[in-house]
């Protein structure tokens, strides 16, 4: 009797392992968390059934739950790593964009109708620093509104008593 049980468990394990590659194909479209949970639950259930010799069902259930939790955690970790890598790649790509004035952040976007998209971005005259609007940084992404002009930096930046002292770009004209 005992031998039969052990044999059936072994067969089950073999089936699980053999089906793993097939599962992998199916799970490709799943999120890493879902994959981790499924794989963890399956493996945990099998392991639990093997370990708990007195009651295979209870062992399988407990193993399945623990395995599912552990699998989810592993999947989440993988997902976080992937997101971080993607974010770093995007940051490297944006760092490759031409910068007009070093150390200057982009201005808030000001709505202007654009014909601007059609205009090519002209380089400003050398010898002065101009702030480049945020919309120009995303060169290949035309927006419903766009700026194609450059703005002067604010000579009064940081002076709270000036009318527009807290804006990096110059705003006071009259």
């Amino acid at each position, binding site marked *: 009797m005992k031998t039969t049980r052990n044999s059936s468990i072994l067969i089950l394990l073999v089936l699980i392992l053999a089906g793993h590659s097939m599962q992998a194909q199916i799970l490709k479209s799943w999120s890493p968390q879902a994959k981790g949970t499924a794989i963890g639950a399956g493996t945990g259930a099998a392991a639990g059934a093997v370990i708990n010799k007195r009651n295979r069902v209870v062992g399988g259930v407990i193993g399945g739950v623990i395995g599912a939790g552990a699998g989810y955690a592993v999947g989440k970790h993988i997902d976080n790593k992937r997101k971080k890598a993607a974010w770093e790649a995007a940051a490297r790509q944006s760092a490759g964009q031409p910068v007009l004035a070093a150390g200057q952040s982009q201005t808030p976007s000001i709505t202007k109708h654009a014909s601007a998209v059609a205009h090519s971005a002209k380089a400003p005259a050398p010898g002065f620093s*101009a702030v480049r609007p945020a919309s120009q940084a995303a060169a290949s992404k035309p927006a419903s509104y766009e700026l194609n002009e450059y703005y002067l930096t604010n000579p009064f930046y940081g002076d*709270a008593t000036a*009318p*527009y*002292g807290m804006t990096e*770009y*110059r*705003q*006071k004209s*009259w």
Partner: protein
Amino acid sequence: MKPFLYMSLLTALATACSTTSEPVNVQELNQQFITAWNTKSADKITSFLADDVQFVQGSSHWTGKSEVASKWVQATLPTLNDLKTSVVSSGADTKTAYEAGTFSVDVLPTSTSEPHGVGEGNFILLWKKGEDNSWKLSYAQLEDLPVRVKQ
């Protein structure tokens, strides 16, 4: 003869009264004011300001002729050229008059390495008639857009 004289006197009186209570020509008033800016006449601009004039621009709010003359007129006058206004709304009665709309102005560089700029924005100029029957700028509010590099 007498009725004719009375009639003439009454007409003259009515005409005189109506002249003093006529609304001011706010377009002309503003034109003088803008011309003073374009001719860089700080004294002339200041003479338009009421003693209790209020000026609002961005985060600044200045009150009184001397403060507004110093912080707005004298500080801004050397930095601009060719001020133009485009009136969107105006109105006048016997005591007050206003014009509001948009403006554009050439912004002069603060250093030789800087280019010229073009400024645009919105304005409202509110005039009030003083006790001496002269019209003075009582309230001015400017909302400037970022200054673009002149192409």
